[in-house]
């Protein structure tokens, strides 16, 4: 009896996190479907049409070949910034001189409208692979560097003092106290950086040369095949969300065992 009672009580069901998460997605999808059926614009397909196009494109290899092209510059770009950016941020957090020297560049870069800078890249790097990598770096670097810097600069003083009192050397202080303490902000920066890098890669494909996933959007728009165009956009959202979630798992695994759900 008690089982049926708890199952029937709606507040109990709603209190479960996954129920609300699924519900929130469903609400958005229903709104999408409704807006597509009205329709708000002839260029706005319903969710079901988009989903059908999505499955088609998955099956006929459109996505596979497009992502193969987009992932190259994205991975190289994000890989470069992840290593270089975290390193730069950590060094700036540890050394005031490095901070005075380097920080303003990234603050300015973060405030600058990057999408407007991307066309300029072609003057320097042409329209090839390097230009796209540069676009990814340009968008992902500021957030990665600034977050790493903030994480390190704001590592708890009391923990550092504790390390000092037990005669930690510099290497121990950095690796055993400062970096783990900063890991939350560093990884938040990496997640945002990955998302930004993805924006950079797509922008480069839309603005510089039509290739990869960016090209899918441009191409199907020109054909007025809106379900396929939206399926391409949907794939970007899904891809970005999944990779960011994976990155979060990696962080918990590497640095924050106490936050892992047991």
């Amino acid at each position, binding site marked *: 009896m008690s089982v049926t009672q708890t199952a029937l009580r709606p507040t109990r069901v709603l209190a479960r996190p996954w129920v609300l998460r699924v519900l929130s997605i469903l609400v958005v999808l229903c709104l999408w479907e409704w807006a597509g059926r009205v329709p708000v614009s002839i260029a706005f397909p319903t969710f079901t049409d988009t989903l059908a196009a999505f499955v088609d494109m998955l099956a006929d290899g459109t996505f596979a070949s497009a992502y193969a092209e987009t992932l190259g510059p994205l991975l190289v770009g994000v890989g470069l910034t992840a290593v270089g950016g975290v390193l730069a941020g950590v060094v700036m957090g540890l050394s005031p001189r490095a901070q005075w020297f380097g920080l303003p560049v990234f603050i300015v870069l973060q405030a600058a409208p990057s999408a407007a800078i991307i066309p300029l890249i072609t003057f320097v790097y042409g329209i090839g692979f390097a230009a796209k990598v540069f676009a990814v770096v340009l968008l992902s670097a500021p957030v990665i560097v600034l977050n790493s810097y903030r994480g390190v600069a704001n590592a708890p003083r009391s923990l550092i003092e504790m390390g000092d009192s*037990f005669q930690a050397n510099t290497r121990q202080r950095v690796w055993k106290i400062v970096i783990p303490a900063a890991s939350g902000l560093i990884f938040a920066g990496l997640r945002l950086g990955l998302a930004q890098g993805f924006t950079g890669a797509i922008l480069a494909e839309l603005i510089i040369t039509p290739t990869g996933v960016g090209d899918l959007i441009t191409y199907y728009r020109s054909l007025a095949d809106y379900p396929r165009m939206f399926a391409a956009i949907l794939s970007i959202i899904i891809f970005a969300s999944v990779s960011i979630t994976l990155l979060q798992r990696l962080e918990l695994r590497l640095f924050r065992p106490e936050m892992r759900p047991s």
Partner: protein
Amino acid sequence: MTEPATHSPDAAVGTPTVDAAVRVVDLVKDFGSDVHAIGGLSFDVPRGELTSIIGPSGCGKTTTLKVIAGLAEPTSGRVEVEGRPVTGPGPDRAMVFQDFALLPWATVLRNAAFGLELKGVPRRERESVAREYVAKVGLAGHEDVYPHQLSGGMRQRVGLARALAVDADILLMDEPFASVDEQIRRKFQEDLLNLLSDEDKTVIFVTHSIEEAVYVSDQIVLLTRGPSTVSTVVRPGLDHSAGSDSVRRSTAYLDWVERIWQELESYLEN
């Protein structure tokens, strides 16, 4: 009125006591040019005893302890540990922090072993030492949990285990029970005394609680309000053999608390 035996302030200043593990000599600490935290502080800490530093809030108790720990530089004057002037943190001193200062990403065992880890003691060895002290502070069975899963009192026990595990002769405790509630605090005070009775440590204990200072101390250094100087040094040295309740009800205990309160009260009024 029979006064408990007391060292006069003059006797404590300048003249070395028989066997001082730590000597604080004419210690002055300014922060910038405006803030004079400590204005010429001198006292001796007898070896193997527990010395409390107590005084009005903002009187530089914690700063004094940090200078002794080597975590802060004195503006002038010096601190000597075993006759050698302190120039920085050393293996002869271990500190227990008011805010526990535990690594949130490390288990109780790793936290307790962290002092040894920093000294490069191999994992197996340091964990076996840490395990022993985790048990001694009453946390056996909690080795693999994380600090956020523990209460404030239990976290400070981990901090104490970490300090004891490095086997320093001198234990520096900075208001260790300040963030612990009253019931837990009393139990912790007793446990601390029991633990120290077979450890042969010299302890310097900063507190703002008169009752706590009287209960745990062999010697109490009372500071004046900043820039602080030594107001007086007293030695309650209560006999703990009769058990904690009878100590806390004893006339000697209550007299000492009253005496120190009156001493401190005079600094609060002006």
